[in-house]
């Protein structure tokens, strides 16, 4: 069996599971974000009274942090009441950050667990050897009532990443290269196991970037076998004992893809699709792509490493007049670290706008919305029409280094001249 299958088997009380089978499995942690007041309504509609386990469910107020209008403030208020009434041990209000960053920081994510959240990017937690998947409000309501959810055991694809990344190539470029090849529906209903020497040597943040965007390939979940970095991270934080699961040597993947990371160059996902991937060099060949805004943030590209590389590129320099750079640390912990190391000061001096840790403008809610006709380069995960504001705006997805180098010049720019 694969490690993921062992997690499903353990949580559904079975010896064995196979792809295609439907099982009902226990959920080890359930998270509801602040777009999902519907979860509370659905919970009562299905006859819910109390949350099944007050230790294992939490709200994270990240999409509207802090509340930009009366409606979202009222939604927060109703969710806070529900959290209070159920005496939930963990609660992440508008002062914490993006759910996929604050949950691992709080130690509720660990190897061998099942985490379900009302957010598609829950695949992120494969970085820790967990089975993470997103769901909607009504599925979440059934979890809050019963502590369980039905799952179809997914087929598992191997994406083997070999070699070391060249200078100027980051985990974001690596996952964009995979997306460009497998396309936006390449892994629908399936799980992706990222393996290979690149993954073995990758730090926690880099692993999270890659697993995070597995959902853009359609994947139900992502997995990476925990390495030393991961085990160090969780051993300092995990709130419960855990078992790392291992894939049996005779396990057969449905398909395997091999990528040589050592030959990659900086990539972009061009408007308006995550899989519209090309090399940066091709995109700017013979033309200038002028920018209105750079954006560094989100559960994909708002960690300390991302802000650090931007600060290195922008230190002592200024972004051009009439452009803007919005930087959104993924969490308060990230913001504190970046403050201590001087990155935030460097970025402010370079002309950046720093906003509250949270999802910000990644999904077009607030704090950096795009006007019609504007072009943005972003370290986030989606460039769908209208994702960050106007449907007539254009979004290029790139690594944080590419975002910083580009906004410094007011046009899409190769970061390799700056790192």
């Amino acid at each position: 069996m694969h490690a993921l299958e062992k997690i499903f088997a353990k949580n559904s009380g079975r010896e064995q599971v196979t792809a295609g089978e439907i099982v009902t499995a226990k959920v080890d942690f359930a998270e509801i974000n602040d777009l999902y007041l519907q979860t509370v309504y659905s919970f009562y509609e299905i006859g819910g009274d109390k949350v099944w386990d007050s230790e294992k469910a939490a709200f994270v107020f990240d999409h509207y942090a802090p509340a930009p209008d009366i409606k979202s403030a009222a939604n927060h208020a109703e969710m806070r009441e529900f959290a209070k009434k159920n005496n939930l041990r963990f609660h992440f209000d508008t002062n914490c950050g993006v759910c996929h960053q604050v949950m691992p920081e709080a130690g509720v994510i660990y190897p061998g667990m099942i985490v379900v959240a009302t957010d598609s990017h829950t695949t992120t937690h494969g970085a820790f050897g967990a089975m993470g998947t997103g769901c909607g409000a009504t599925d979440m309501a059934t979890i809050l009532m019963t502590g369980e959810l039905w799952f179809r055991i997914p087929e598992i694809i191997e994406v083997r990443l070999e070699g070391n990344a060249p200078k100027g190539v980051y985990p974001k470029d690596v996952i964009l290269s995979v997306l460009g090849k497998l396309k936006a529906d390449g892994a629908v209903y399936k799980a992706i196991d990222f393996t290979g020497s690149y993954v073995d040597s990758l730090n926690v943040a880099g692993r999270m970037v890659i697993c995070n965007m597995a959902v853009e390939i359609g994947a139900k979940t992502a997995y990476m076998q925990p390495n030393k970095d991961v085990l160090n991270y969780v051993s300092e934080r995990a709130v419960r004992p855990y078992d790392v699961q291992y894939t049996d040597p005779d396990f057969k993947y449905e398909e395997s893809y091999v990528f040589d990371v050592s030959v990659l160059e900086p990539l972009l996902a061009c408007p308006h699709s995550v899989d519209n991937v090309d090399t940066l060099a091709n995109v700017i060949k013979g033309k200038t792509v002028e920018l209105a805004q750079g954006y560094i943030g989100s559960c994909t590209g708002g960690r300390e490493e991302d802000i650090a590389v931007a600060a290195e590129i922008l230190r002592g320099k200024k972004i051009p007049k009439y452009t803007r750079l919005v930087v959104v640390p993924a969490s308060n912990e990230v913001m504190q670290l970046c403050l201590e190391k001087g990155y935030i000061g460097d970025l402010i001096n370079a002309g950046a706008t720093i906003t509250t840790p949270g999802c910000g403008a990644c999904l077009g809610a607030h704090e950096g919305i795009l006007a019609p006709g504007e072009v943005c380069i972003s370290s986030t995960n989606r460039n769908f029409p209208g994702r960050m504001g106007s449907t007539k705006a254009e979004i290029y997805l790139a690594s944080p280094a590419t975002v910083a180098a580009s906004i410094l010049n007011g046009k899409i720019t190769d970061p390799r001249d700056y790192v």
Partner: protein
Amino acid sequence: MKKEITGKVTIVGNNIDTDQIYPGCFLAITDEKEIGSHCLAGVDENIAPNFPKGGVIVAGTNFGCGSSREHAPIALLNMGVSAVVADSFARIFFRNSINLGLPLIVCKGISKRVKDGQTLLIDLENGTVTIKETNEKLCCDKLGDQAMKILEAGGIKPMMRARFGKSE
């Protein structure tokens, strides 16, 4: 649940994500009728005000990809959609829709065969879609047992109420 559905077709493209089905700027809205009024605003704001009641959305591949927002199927249901037929669907959207009792039918090649404004006759039990105007009958993937069970119960909410003995 009705096992035969008839509705007028509105066609959309490939990779229609949930931001296009229900844009982020409307996410704080909780009134379902109001949610329905913004349905598919990311594709074309004129779709919702003119949508024929009981109409069918026909889409290309990977319909509903992206965000897990349940607003997407809530918007479709409240705009008056009776079913969505597509070349393929994204996973979370598929679950959310079935959970709310919105039938989704995978019919490979449908987006190239049917025209905007035609009428589709959908037979959920036998897994077929017929274009009324041309009488062309297309075979679809049958829904899985689990999805069918949920749809037959009228969605996951009545199913859960029945399981835990709560009456309507």
